[in-house]
């Protein structure tokens, strides 16, 4: 955390190296977070880019308050997602399979993963906003329960309960396929 604080201080002085390092460390996580929430790869790309452009414009006003830097980025991303969804006023059903990484050359494995992701993406649409947020932060953002709690403004107990109920709901929606 100390090194991150130092990095952030340098970034706040508009040190290009520090800014680039923060970008590299968080880019994939923010992309995944947005992608899972909106379900559209192209829009997720544009929004991810915009999150970082907004971040470098306002990083001078960033205050740690004991939270990881990524929490701040997730908040920016969350606000963008909310705006995006409000504008669209409908849920997106864009397939996520195009974004599936090709892990090796095993076509069977690729297909399996594609099917799994499609199923989970569809099931996630039936979750509450809070459940979706917990799933996004925990599994895409890789935040701990404590970090999720601070980011969402809830207690750790509440996050654990939300996590539990979200997984139960996902399983029900998946119809025991997983």
């Amino acid at each position: 955390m100390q090194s991150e604080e130092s990095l952030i201080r340098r970034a706040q002085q508009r040190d290009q190296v520090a800014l680039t390092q923060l970008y590299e460390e968080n880019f994939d996580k923010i992309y995944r977070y947005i992608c899972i929430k909106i379900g559209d790869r192209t829009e997720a790309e544009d929004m991810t880019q915009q999150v970082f452009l907004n971040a470098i414009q306002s990083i001078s006003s960033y205050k740690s308050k004991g939270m990881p830097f990524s929490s701040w980025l997730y908040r920016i991303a969350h606000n963008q997602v909310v705006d995006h969804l409000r504008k669209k006023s409908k849920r997106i059903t864009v397939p996520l399979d195009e974004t599936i990484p090709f892990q090796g050359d095993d076509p069977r494995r690729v297909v399996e993963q594609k099917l799994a992701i499609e199923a989970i993406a569809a099931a996630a649409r039936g979750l509450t906003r809070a459940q979706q947020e917990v799933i996004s932060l925990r599994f895409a953002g890789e935040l701990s329960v404590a970090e999720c709690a601070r980011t969402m403004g809830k207690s750790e107990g509440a996050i654990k309960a939300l996590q539990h109920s979200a997984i139960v709901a996902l399983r029900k929606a998946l119809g025991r396929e997983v």
Partner: protein
Amino acid sequence: MSKARKFDDILNECIERMLKREPIETCLAAFPEHAAELEPLLRTAMATRKAAEIQPRAEFRQRAAHEFQAAVRNLKPRRSSSLRWQLRLVTVISVVVIVLMAGTGTVAAATNSLPDQPLYGVKLFTENVRVALTPSAVGKAELYAQFTDTRVSEIIKMADEGKVAEVEKATERMNSNLTAITRLTQSAGDTGTAGGTPPVLSSASAAAEAPPSTPTTMPVPTPTTMSVPTPTIILVPTPAPITATAAAPNVTTPQALPKPVVPPPSVPTPVPGVPTQAPSFAQKVTPVPAPTPEKATSVNATRLAGTQKAENTAKNNEKPDLQTTVSQQAQKNTQDLEEALKRVPDNVKPSLQKAIDVAGKGYEEALKNMDKKR
């Protein structure tokens, strides 16, 4: 801890392990009593985790990185925090200094402004502020006495320039100041018979008025120089001597005014043992060697007492009190106004004569109250 809460904790611990790439079986083995319930949930969690392992396309990653670097390059390097604070401090201090200088300069410039000048409002406002900031009634009365002096100077300057309207406005303000002095000296002494006549009355009513021992209730105007209650002023053709037994001159309309006859000022030579009297007032006042409240049935005695007190104060080298100050001002201002009356254009003379009457009556009332207070 409730059962559900406990299970939430166990599930979370297993998810943490799973996120660290531990196999599900290890978690199940760690919690055999919950294994049946945990297993389907952990498999769902694992599937979700895999679904979330989405990687951005290489093409997009490259484009995004390029645009981010371009945006970073366009950022201007920030100054250090301490330097920013120093700059902010310097900016704030500069602004404060500029505002103070501008404010002080404006007030200073307004001090000498005249009623027909733009900064005159600032001058009046400053006076009001000074009064508001003065806690004691005597202090306020002293300020009003000072402002009355200022009004008299303004009246004379405006009269010299032939500005009738400005003379009349300044006269109203002077009347307001004098009224305030009277009111404040009453409140300071507060005899329970607060009263007195308005500072300015028509000659007829002034003549018909009872002796000063039976004062009438005086309306107390707001002590402001911005809005002044218009006094009832009826011009008199000649500056009739104001004495307790003065006959009431006929009330005339301003249109019918003959040219005022002003007696030449006479400057008395101070004689030891004889109270010093201002020319105009002296002409109106019947000398009373030893004025007493009983004998001084008019303001003459009051003025005389003030004059004598002024002498005594001077002899004793003391700071003059309010009564002395007002008495001296009354003499000087009346004299100045009457001298001005001789030289101003004819069209201004009625207004200036009105100012003289207002000043005379206003000072009378103020001094009378001060004397009663004693």
